[in-house]
């Protein structure tokens, strides 16, 4: 496993301490793992602390999935983690981004019944 693979895995597992350590060790925050994804794209969406560390280190919040056009904000909105949604927006994730099915994050939040996320994204 490369350092970036490890970073992506730690992010996906919601392991904040490991994410921070790997970044300090020089793992590229916007590097892609062996599946072609960045750590922010694969992170555990409910782990706002992991999101925070990655974003502080300069993770690009607007990388879309190569197959589906999904951004991290789409995923956080679909799964309903409002704290992560707020944080991504604070770090300039684009709320108007559209995935390959032409959905915006707010559309996914609505479809999945996450009223708090819908309300927040509407307020922007």
């Amino acid at each position: 496993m490369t350092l970036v693979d490890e970073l992506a895995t730690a992010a996906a597992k919601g392991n904040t301490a490991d994410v921070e350590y790997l970044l300090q060790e020089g793992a590229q925050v916007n590097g892609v793992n062996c599946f072609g994804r960045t750590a922010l794209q694969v992170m555990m969406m409910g782990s706002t602390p992991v999101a925070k560390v990655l974003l502080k280190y300069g993770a690009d919040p607007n990388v879309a999935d190569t197959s589906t056009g999904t951004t991290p904000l789409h995923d956080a909105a679909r799964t309903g983690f409002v704290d992560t949604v707020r944080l991504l927006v604070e770090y300039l994730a684009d709320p108007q981004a559209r995935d390959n099915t032409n959905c915006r994050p707010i559309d996914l939040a609505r479809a999945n019944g996450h009223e708090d996320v819908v309300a927040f994204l509407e307020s922007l």
Partner: protein
Amino acid sequence: MAHATSIQYEPVAEIGGGAYGTVYKARDTESGQFVALKSVRVQTDQNGLPISTVREVALLRRLEQFDHPNVVRLMDVCATQRSDQETKVTLVFEHVDQDLKTYLERAPAPGLSPGRIKDLMRQLLCGLTFLHSNRVMHRDLKPENILVTSQGQVKLADFGLARIYSCHMALTPVVVTLWYRPPEVLLQSSYATPVDIWSTGCIFAEMFRRKPLFCGESEVDQLGKIFEVIGLPPEDEWPTDVTLSRKNFPPLMPRPIADFVSEITEQGAQLLLNMLTFDPLKRISALNALEHPYFQDEETLTQTKS
């Protein structure tokens, strides 16, 4: 069993590497959602998959039909033939983007409210009651395997595969945490569904403490840490089929559980002790735990109404 996993499910990150195979977070390109892919390599002969594997998969599928709210959905099962002797069986589970470990870490000080803990415990025990009533034991319950949705719904992951896996264990030794293991497993005695109740007790305590209850570094150390809290069990409760003797441990008396888990109510403490009972036969069952007075007070009643 269908095939062609690779097209519909695209792995995006590795999230677990057990003794038997790897677990991936993947994207279902049809729905756009994340899934968890778990694959096991099984040896095949001219008759195809071994009967034990077919049975296990059938059991998981049968469980799935109940659509239980507190276990992760099994969405798909795929088999891909690798060679004449080997087939890869991939189980596709619903992916939940938060585990209990993260959920506990995220809770602002001073931690989860008593009502929230009770609600999580009730859901956890409902999931376990369901598994146990179908004669499935989890065997590896820990905060990382207990998932919590953004709506606070608990879903158990990583269950029911124990038997598939144990038939096909590779030789790679894996480091597994001992902290949630019951005495009978640490002593390598025989075990059954009460193992999960012990683990649940450890997790119950951890919800209050926000750190694990017993952090042993080896099997013997783990047992020592357990006896420091529950006391050394009486001679007649020590299993007879084990090599480790009771004499290896100092004759400790049980200590009040409130010394280790402050803020727990009287009834909570009582339930916790019923779960952290040395003798698996005397340990409370998941079903009886749900009927414990801890779950019967007013706080609970208002919670279920809302």
